[in-house]
């Protein structure tokens, strides 16, 4: 692991408050994830890859924006690992960079329909942009 990866790993672990070492690799998070099929890397892989400092592929993965923050993986993890918090910390590591917003305010009108509640827009902006 080079220096910058190690720093990134530390930053992700600190910001999420998650200790990936607690994982016993049972895969219950991925068994429970409703967005599993949309993801290229699955919740258990996030935990494993962050633990091993294999973070670059995660940064580039669309999986970051498929997590629904439904907290099901947090709820059902037998070890209290909280994978969703790790997914979020990796996502923040991406979008906090200058100009890296995944969703820009200008893009939104095109995505809207008449009935869409404000809550959806606000949440998406929170999750996808800084």
């Amino acid at each position: 692991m080079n220096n910058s990866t190690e720093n990134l790993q530390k930053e992700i672990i600190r910001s999420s408050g998650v200790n990936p070492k607690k994982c016993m690799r049972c895969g219950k998070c991925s068994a429970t994830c409703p967005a599993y099929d949309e993801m290229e890397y699955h919740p258990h892989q996030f935990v494993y890859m962050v633990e091993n400092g294999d973070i670059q592929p995660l940064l580039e993965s669309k999986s970051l924006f498929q997590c629904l923050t439904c907290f099901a993986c947090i709820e059902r993890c037998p070890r209290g690992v909280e994978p969703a918090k790790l997914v979020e910390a990796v996502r923040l590591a991406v979008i906090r960079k200058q100009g890296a917003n995944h969703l820009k305010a200008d893009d939104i009108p095109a995505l809207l329909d008449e009935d869409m509640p404000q809550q959806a827009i606000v949440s998406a902006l929170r999750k996808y942009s800084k």
Partner: protein
Amino acid sequence: MQRIGVFVCWCGSNIAGTVDVQAVSDALQNEPGVVFSTNYQYMCSQAGQDIIKNAIAEHKLTGIVVCSCSPRMHEATFRKTAAAAGLNPYMVEIANIREQCSWVHKDMPTGTEKAIILGKAAVAKVNLNAPLKPGESPVTKRALVIGGGIAGIQTALDIAEAGFPVDIVEKKPTIGGKMAQLDKTFPTLDCAACILTPKMVDVAQNENIRIFSYSEVEEVGGFVGNFDVKIRKKARFVNEDICTGCGICTEKCPQKKVPNEFNLGMDNRRAIYIPFAQAVPKVATIDADYCTMLKTGKCGVCSKVCTAGAIDYTQKDEIIEEKYGAIVAATGFNPISMDKFDEYAYNQSKDVITSLEFERLTNAAGPSAGKLVRPSDGKHPHTIVFVQCVGSRCAACAEKGKEYCSKICCMYTAKHAMLTRDKYPDTDVYVFYIDVRTPGKAFDEFYRRAVEEYGVHYIKGMVGKVSPEGDKLMVQASDLLANKQLHIEADLVVLAAAIEPDKSARPLATQLTASMDTNDFFTEAHPKLRPVESPTAGVFLSGTCQGPKDIPETVSQASAAAAKVIGLLAKDKLTGNPCVAASDELMCNVCSSCERVCPYGAITYVDKEFRMPDRTTRVRRVASVNEAVCQGCGACTVACPSGAMDLKGFATKQIIAEVDAICR
């Protein structure tokens, strides 16, 4: 003032090579209390011991310091030598000038100097030594086994075989425990009843064994060799001595809607019942919660049909008092509640069952007469999903699961999967596992057979959710090796529920002053070297009350516990370690600090009469150490705020004298 003799050993050149032994014996000659000092080539030899014996006689020695090898080597030797010469063996102290001086230091002046200091410390200590006499206590030659499962049965049989009387206390109406509920046993697949029930009969027929079924331990007093136990024999409203176990009452009882706990509530029994056909003792029991007669006074059918006249609605609980020399805890385990695992829909669907329920479903004497059917509709399941580690290795939430591995689930699930495929080859069997743990004789081979010969699908991954849909169970799971999320339409889901100690173990541990770990398993005296003894003297551990175990392991531990009990009961008297705590009753202020830190429950409080200066007497409670139970760790001596508690052989004054001598 003591008359101390100092004996410096050369140990050939082992000591003399680095320590000037003459200088040591000369220097110690001048220490207070020393009346004789010498050195010799091999103190532990017969000639060396004779020097000591002669000096004791000639110089009327009252204490001895041997400067030699580690006390772990020859302390016992020199104590015997002293005793042979009429000196109390506890008046001997060793200064370790070999392992802790000559062997670790190189040059003569420093080695000699240190040896002198170590000798001075030993002399200072002996000056304050007092003769000690180990306490003795008689042994009641009878053992109590608490719990009548396979662990308790094996322990009781082994003790009885050795000729000692044993009582088994079992809270259920019959002995047999969990093993009686099992169908087949791994890895040999012999039927549990076939190997267990003969042992149950042996217990019933052994003249040395009494069974108190439907009974619980009420109170435990006393200590090793001399326990006083009160046993509550719960009213079963049937006279055990008269009941023949014919079972007519259990067929005629009109109250038919009582959940049958032996079949885990999957069918019903009557209010008067015999748990299963091979029950020991085979006598009926009335369940007071359901009996119409006991509740309303109207019925009495069982009494009418009983030709032996064994029914007694007026029966009361009975308290039996008995003395025991040793107690064995064999309280066993239970699967944990699945209430907190509703992601697996245990409470939503009858077709989600635990492994123990599966045992009953496949057992010929079970609710479905051994036919594997779905509890909901009685249909044959074609797809079965087994989920491992439900509540085991669960560190997220203490209310939910257990942090430890339950040890037996991998093997019994392999057994279930194999038996299912064997009997019903048209069934698809999936096992979701995190790790397959099979350390045991012929265990891994067994698991591999399930996979290779019986075609059980083992999938590495966990089940996330079970959703009952119509008469199917949708199982959503991950296959970690294929990196896929699976959706399986199952007919039956079997959960390998974690196991936990029986709930009765915690209060029992309190009664026995035996310690427990955070999971309520009994703690062993030493995890490696004394695995079947509790730290509390005279209390032994058998079976799963000490930790998760399978049957072979339980039986070995049960026999090991029995061997320890036999060793104890074979003695006429127990000789204790004389280096035990003692309380100065005048200084004790009954704060109970000592009692709280004592790991053995050796400290109790007694009322003691004290004469006051004005010649009146006053009764005051003071701490009292049971010398038969105390192991001499000294925790209480430091906890005691008033300094009333001291440890014989390692008294506060003695240790301070050593400190002073070293720092002088």
